């Protein structure tokens, strides 16, 4: 039976200013239980500020936030137990072992003794931590440390796992490992994942995406809907010919010639299909592709996202 979709996080008219800087300026959004929610934006867009307020690290200037139906202003401690957070930079004690780090953090949530050992066992199985538990964090690789960070965030069985740019600065292999962990959690552990990122391909994996720019929400929808609204689909044809270029010019289609293919912009999948069928004799090697999140971001914000830095 399908689960009734309910909002596990509700943010209404959130504002957070630092002097004259409007880090977050009147934003509202909801996160549904069990979904993978992505906050997409450049550095300074207000992503980390928002999650710091949700996690109870920073205070807000105005607005309301409820977590699992509870207002964070009135029940800070209660809402804190519902949220686990993985910071962009590992915030664990590097001199201590993974076991000591996890034990301390569990203790701060009131989890001790057998309850802690049982929870540790679960997480060790889920994140393959057993060989790492007795190792100090300073002797671990970036990927191993990230797994401990995730375990630390999950030690108290939170309903929401917030990850602040969890893959920034990690090598591709470690990024794949982190995503494999997240997908496992999403599939089996009924945890809502709230992710901030500036990697487009990560945002495209989410169930719902909010694009932030200079403290404002500039777009929010399902990734596919965003692509339909803000990006063009396109055809890639790998066997170029003069005849094909002549046809494209004749039909006044927008196209770009690359070294080994031609990229043709189409309004939607239907138009793309029609073009391919109508001119199937002109090419053999062809792809019909959806627009990218990069294009969505460019069209929504007027900025290009290149690994966290923007070019307008």
């Amino acid at each position, binding site marked *: 039976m399908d689960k009734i979709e309910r909002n596990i996080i509700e943010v209404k008219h959130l504002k957070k200013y630092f002097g004259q800087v409007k880090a977050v300026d009147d934003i509202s959004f909801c996160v549904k239980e069990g979904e993978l929610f992505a906050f997409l934006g450049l550095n300074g867009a207000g992503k980390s500020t928002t999650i710091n307020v949700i996690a109870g690290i920073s205070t807000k*200037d105005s607005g309301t936030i409820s977590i699992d139906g509870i207002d964070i202003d009135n029940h800070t401690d209660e809402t804190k137990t519902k949220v686990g957070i993985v910071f962009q930079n590992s915030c664990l004690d590097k001199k201590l072992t993974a076991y*000591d780090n996890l034990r301390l953090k569990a203790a*701060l949530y009131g989890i001790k003794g057998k309850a802690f050992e049982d929870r540790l066992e679960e997480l060790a199985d889920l994140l393959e931590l057993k060989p790492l538990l007795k190792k100090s964090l300073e002797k671990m690789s970036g990927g191993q440390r990230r797994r401990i960070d995730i375990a630390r965030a999950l030690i108290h069985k939170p309903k929401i796992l917030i990850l602040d740019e969890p893959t920034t600065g990690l090598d591709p292999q470690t990024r794949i490992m982190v995503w494999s962990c997240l997908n496992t959690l999403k599939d089996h552990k009924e945890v809502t994942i709230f992710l901030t990122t500036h990697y487009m391909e990560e945002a495209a994996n989410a169930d719902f995406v909010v694009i932030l720019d200079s403290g404002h929400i500039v777009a929010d929808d399902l990734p596919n809907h965003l692509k339909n609204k803000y990006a063009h689909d396109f055809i890639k044809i790998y066997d170029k010919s003069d005849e094909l270029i002549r046809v494209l010019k004749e039909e006044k289609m927008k196209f770009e010639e690359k070294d080994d293919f031609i990229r043709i912009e189409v309004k939607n999948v239907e138009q793309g299909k029609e073009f391919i069928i109508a001119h199937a004799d002109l090419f053999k090697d062809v792809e019909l592709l959806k627009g990218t999140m990069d294009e969505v971001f460019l069209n929504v914000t007027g900025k290009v996202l290149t690994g966290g830095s923007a070019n307008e």
Partner: protein
Amino acid sequence: MNKNLYDLLYLIKRNIKMYFKDKGTFLISLITPAILLILFITFLRSLYTSSLEHYIPEGVIISSRVLNGFTAGWLVSSILASSCITIAFCSNTIIIADRANGIVDDILVTPVKKTVLSLSYLISNYITTTIVCLACLGLGFGYMAIVGWYLSFNDVIMIILNTLLLTLFGSLLATIIESFIKSMGVGTALSTLVSSMYGFLCGAYMPISQFSDSIQNFIKFLPGTYGTILFRYYFVRGATEALGKDLPAEAIDSIRVNFDTEIEFFGNKLSNGTCFLIVGVTALVLLAAFIAIVLIRDRAKVKKTEVAVAKN
């Protein structure tokens, strides 16, 4: 057990563990005692011995054990007088490191009160500083037992009491000052500055009586000075009495003044009780300041939340 108390104990344990695991911080905090030891071995010992011999009339023979007992007492009192403060500053850099590395945020996302976290830094700093100072004291007693032991049971008790009191003063001062520092660079610079300066200011490297009048007057306004005087008094009291058997009373009075075992505050000779009172009252004032700072910070956060709620 009450959750706040339980959290406090865990955080204290964590802070202490971090200090002793971080060999760099641990060794840096031992720089001042190490410098003193080196200076003593290289020239201070012979300098003090020749200074003492200056008071010995011709024909009077003083046992080298008495002279060694006196100089050893002076060395150990110097080490302790400076260590109680400098070790407190060095070991407390964990406050700054935690803030700079985001560990404070990671702790505050758990249901731990900010006041409990602040208190844990103070208490753990007091415990670590006391452990190291008592270890130095133990080694000092060992050395004195070998070269010349003239301490009574009462002297030992008063030395231990003074160690505990001066350490409390140092810990409070370090915790208050370092709670305002946000960068590790500033924290390290401060620790280094305190380590190098305090040795001079407390008269560890040379007796306060050797400074110019204006500097002496300035030093007399520093409460730690009175802790130094108490150490001096109890560490060399027995050896001075032994010297008194063979030396004239004027010579003993001169030794007491020139080797800082007693102090005058604008013409009034201060008793040991007054010295204890000055250090004790200062520690109480610092404790009150610490509590006020913690409460003001906590209330500022509550007030901000209340303002945000009112704006809604």
